């Protein structure tokens, strides 16, 4: 779509370069770990952002898909000896299937009902993980093997995460700036308009839910490899709420906003030890603050700043029709 500033390829490439080099150059293992964590969260959030930010579907349950991704690698590779890379792909596919299932209720249920359903589904994943202890290790959890070869080192894993994140960000950006992006916004903002332009809301929703499930599954797999051990406790509702908050504070209809949100909210507990204890409390407080005062999030603040310092001239008050141009456009639509 027509973004004045955020959509430029140059800005994106530059940001990417900085992102990649900084933690590697620093040599700080802790920084590398945190950067990798931000990356894995971002892989999930960028898919979830399409669902929540662009399509307006309130899913707080994607943490369940995240868990499925992580456990797929733990079980597939750790227990059954599949190669971790194959397990990563399977995690994505499984995530996609479950994402599809998650999307089905959205076709019929109104907003609050759907949000509650996604909450329930994520809790069900938790229950299954604890109950099926023969497969999942129950409450004690499972170790997750890392990837092989050059990806076995922290730097290697970091580069993998960055690579996946960059690819999925590009894909996501493509979807939002082409016709599918407009169709998604119509579903979010005006179902009447969406119907009037012929958008098959059900099909679009299911497609996007499947895609977001794929990214969540892949993100979970990367997360599992990064943490090298997973338990059901890790995938509590609070984490699902965290993902959701990153998007809301980022602002709807934006990719940069939620990215900044993810970076800031992930870094906060790492920066301050006391924050880490009250982390979830402060996340909820931030959400409340944003919803009450800046409901359109960081991206709206950025937009306001841009318009403040680079204001556009007021449009002229007279409208000048160009009937011949209109007639020619009506005669030849071009497709």
């Amino acid at each position: 779509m027509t973004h004045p500033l955020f959509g430029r390829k140059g800005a994106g490439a530059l940001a990417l370069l900085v992102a990649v080099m900084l933690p590697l150059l620093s040599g700080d293992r802790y920084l590398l770990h945190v950067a990798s964590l931000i990356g894995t969260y971002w892989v999930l959030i960028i898919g979830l952002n399409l669902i929540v930010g662009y399509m307006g579907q309130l899913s707080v349950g994607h943490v369940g898909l995240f868990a499925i991704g992580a456990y797929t690698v733990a079980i597939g590779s750790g227990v059954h000896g599949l190669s971790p890379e194959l397990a990563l792909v399977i995690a994505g596919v499984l995530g996609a299937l479950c994402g599809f299932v998650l999307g089905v209720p959205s076709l019929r249920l109104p907003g609050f009902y759907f949000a509650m359903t996604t909450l329930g589904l994520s809790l069900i994943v938790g229950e299954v993980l604890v109950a099926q202890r023969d497969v999942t290790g129950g409450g004690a959890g499972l170790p997750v093997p890392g990837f092989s070869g050059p990806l076995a080192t922290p730097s290697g894993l970091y580069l993998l995460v960055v690579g996946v994140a960059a690819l999925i960000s590009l894909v996501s950006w493509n979807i939002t700036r082409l016709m599918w992006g407009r169709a998604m916004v119509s579903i979010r903002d005006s179902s009447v308009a969406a119907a009037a332009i012929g958008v098959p809301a059900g099909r679009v929703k299911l497609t996007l839910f499947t895609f977001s499930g794929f990214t969540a599954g892949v993100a979970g797999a990367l997360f599992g490899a990064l943490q090298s051990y997973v338990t059901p406790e890790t995938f509590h509702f609070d984490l699902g709420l965290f993902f959701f908050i990153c998007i809301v504070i980022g602002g709807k209809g934006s990719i940069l906003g939620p990215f900044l949100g993810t970076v800031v909210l992930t870094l906060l507990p790492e920066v301050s030890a006391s924050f880490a204890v009250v982390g979830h409390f402060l996340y909820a407080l931030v959400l409340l603050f944003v919803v009450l005062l800046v409901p359109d999030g960081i991206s709206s603040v950025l937009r306001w700043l841009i318009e403040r310092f680079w204001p556009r001239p007021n449009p002229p008050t007279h409208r000048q029709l160009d009937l011949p141009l209109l007639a020619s456009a009506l005669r030849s639509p071009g497709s």
Partner: protein
Amino acid sequence: MKNPSISADFLPPLTVAAARSQKLAAVGITKKFGGLTALDNVSLDLARSTIHGLIGPNGSGKTSLLNMLSGYYVMDTGDVFCGGQNLSRVSVEDRVKHRIARTFQTPRLLGDLTSLDNVMSGAWSRTRSGFLASAFALPSARKEEREIRQHSEKLLKGLGLGELMNRRANTLEHGDQRFLEIGRALAMSPDYLLLDEPAGGLTDGEIAHLEEVIKVVRDAGIGVLLVEHHTDFVFRTCDEVTVLDLGKVIVHGKPAEVQNHEEVIRVYLGGTNASLAKN
């Protein structure tokens, strides 16, 4: 649901004619909301290259009929035909495939998107790019986007909104929003354009512009249904006019015939000899 391919002997004449013609037609529509009869055996033909006005006092059923044609309401009895096919049970989204576009009494725009994006969104039904083609920005998807963008830019400039192309739709003035919504409807390359009280809240200058735009749309081969309150605007602009009152059609014909028709005058002005042309 009547099947138009059944032998004509079994169908009333009006239905056969409607089924065979290239028109958007409502045939014998009746719709009750609880105890209220919104439409009572109403029929209306909208032909291509025509501007067909639909007027009537408040509550006469004008918008209900428009909603019936576009698929937002389902009738109790009667049918809607388009190009020979029975659309009565077809959903709103699927009617778009029959190239039926509409605007709304209050513009339903995507406020956070720019004017250009809003118009481009109207071309959704013409896109062929699937999800994966878009996801990987394949050349076919990018070409389609370019073509739609060029077409939409022409529509915007044609409608006088060229300077507002990159402004968010919710920052536009009311009049501009109305024209923007028409632009979105035209981006579909429709065969039929249903306008629901498009002159609402427009200045005289804007109404004059609207008249010119509607005529250009008609000349391009599109059938325009103009549901309106501004009766003088309707009589000036339309090729034919249908008048509704309390859910029934009371007269249909050319503007000159209709505006001097006794029944119409009685319904609007309460029984004087005054002609509606003085409105």
